[in-house]
């Protein structure tokens, strides 16, 4: 009596999966006088793949960095998994979140950066295994096992002992993807992860991301200039301009029938690509 059975608990969590996993509410970000995000609202469903497109300087990176807790919103709220990310309740009052609160929720989010940001003083294996050891508290053995699995997944099982400087850009970025994935985040942020790569290395990185996306469960926010990739991988495309979500929709709707003139003008720069045909 009284205690719900395990099955009931699971049923309850199942029924909650329709709740957004990430919720931006009126989120604004100013850098001094410059407002780079303007009251953005955005709900992301669990497992959803969202591609964020838009001109350079429109606020796409900032949108991701706010969720990764690298940048504090100037106003508005962000929820992750139903809980406020940047605020916490102290004595019934909402106050800016402290480091402990952030640390608690940050673990649900992972990010891959444009510039890879691998740790140059560590081997590939240690790059991936270090956070599981230092942050999750796994044993060295367990962490390395997990790390090796992840590195195999991104096709780098033979580079465990290499240092980042010995790898191509594409390989480095795949290590960075493994390093983020090994922490088993619920939401992965990819910020123009192929922009710093030589054109011939872009494909291998996009392939890895497509494979992860195809597995289904991972929620992904992908800032990208690769329109073919966005169309292929995303459930929803978001077009940001001047700090606002100007238009959003399925890849089909947004690429084939953009309604907003700014979306149209932005997409016209990619006309050469074959996205229109399919």
């Amino acid at each position, binding site marked *: 009596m009284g205690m719900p059975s395990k099955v009931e608990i699971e049923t309850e969590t199942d029924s909650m999966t329709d709740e957004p996993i990430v919720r931006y509410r009126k989120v604004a970000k100013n850098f001094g006088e410059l407002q780079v995000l303007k009251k953005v609202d955005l709900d992301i469903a669990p497992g959803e793949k969202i591609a964020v497109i838009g001109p350079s300087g429109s606020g796409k990176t900032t949108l991701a960095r706010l969720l990764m807790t690298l940048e504090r919103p100037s106003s508005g709220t962000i929820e992750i998994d139903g809980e406020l990310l940047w605020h916490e309740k102290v004595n019934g009052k909402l106050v800016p979140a402290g480091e402990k609160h952030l640390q608690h929720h*940050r673990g649900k989010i992972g990010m891959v950066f444009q510039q890879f940001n691998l740790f140059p003083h560590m081997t590939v294996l240690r790059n991936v295994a270090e956070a599981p050891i230092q942050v999750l508290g796994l044993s060295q053995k367990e962490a390395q096992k997990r790390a090796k699995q992840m590195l195999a997944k991104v096709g780098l099982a033979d580079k465990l002992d290499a240092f980042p400087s010995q790898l191509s850009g594409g390989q480095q970025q795949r290590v960075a993807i493994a390093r983020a994935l090994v922490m088993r985040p619920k939401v992965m942020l990819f910020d123009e992860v192929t922009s710093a790569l030589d054109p011939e290395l872009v494909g291998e990185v996009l392939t890895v991301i497509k494979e992860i996306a195809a597995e289904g469960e991972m929620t992904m926010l992908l800032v990208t200039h690769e329109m073919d990739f966005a169309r292929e991988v995303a459930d929803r495309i978001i077009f940001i301009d001047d700090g606002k979500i100007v238009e959003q929709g399925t890849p089909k709707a947004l690429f084939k029938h953009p309604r907003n003139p700014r979306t149209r003008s932005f997409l016209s720069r990619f006309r050469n690509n074959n996205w229109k045909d399919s």
Partner: protein
Amino acid sequence: MWDWEFAFYVMPDILKAIRVTIAATLAGFALALAVGLALALLRRSAFKPLSLATIGFIEFVRSTPLLIQLFFIFYALPLSTGISFSAFQAGTIGLGFHYGTYLSEVYRSGIDAIPRGQWEAATALNFSRLRTWTKIILPQAIPPTVPVMGNYLIAMFKETPLLSAITLVEMLQTAKIIGSDCYRYLEPFTLVGIFFLLLSYPASVLVKRLEFQLKQQ
């Protein structure tokens, strides 16, 4: 004129005193490494009064002569506070804090050279502040500073004769005692100079080589 016999006669005493010189250098430098790191970190504190106080302390120590600081620690402190140190302890503290303020700048340059992306990657992986420092930032920030640190070690070594002013019987003090006992200063002082040269020159060659190797990487 130079007297070889006398030189050989006093050499063992001076060589014995080398141990004190080296011990004071190593102890002082070890303290300077710790103090320097602490100052570099305190200076970065987000708590402004603490960071300003640290900067003030660094500037104050750097703009006053080491000799006065040594006198202060050895002679003034015991009389005004009752805390007293042996000459060796006072020398270590004086050298450690004085050079610590210089080394804090060296640490700082090393830390400032770490790209922002390293901090951000550590945050994204949810490293705690402490682990970010110990696993990510310092292991990258410190190796490039080793040659500069080495140069400070050599500079500090050459400043240890100052400790004779607070009665530490290191090489120079030993030479002075011999000189006043035997009325011959030429040989003892020359020997002291030669011993400093014999130790600091190879050390500076080593530092140059380290510097070169780091540049190659």
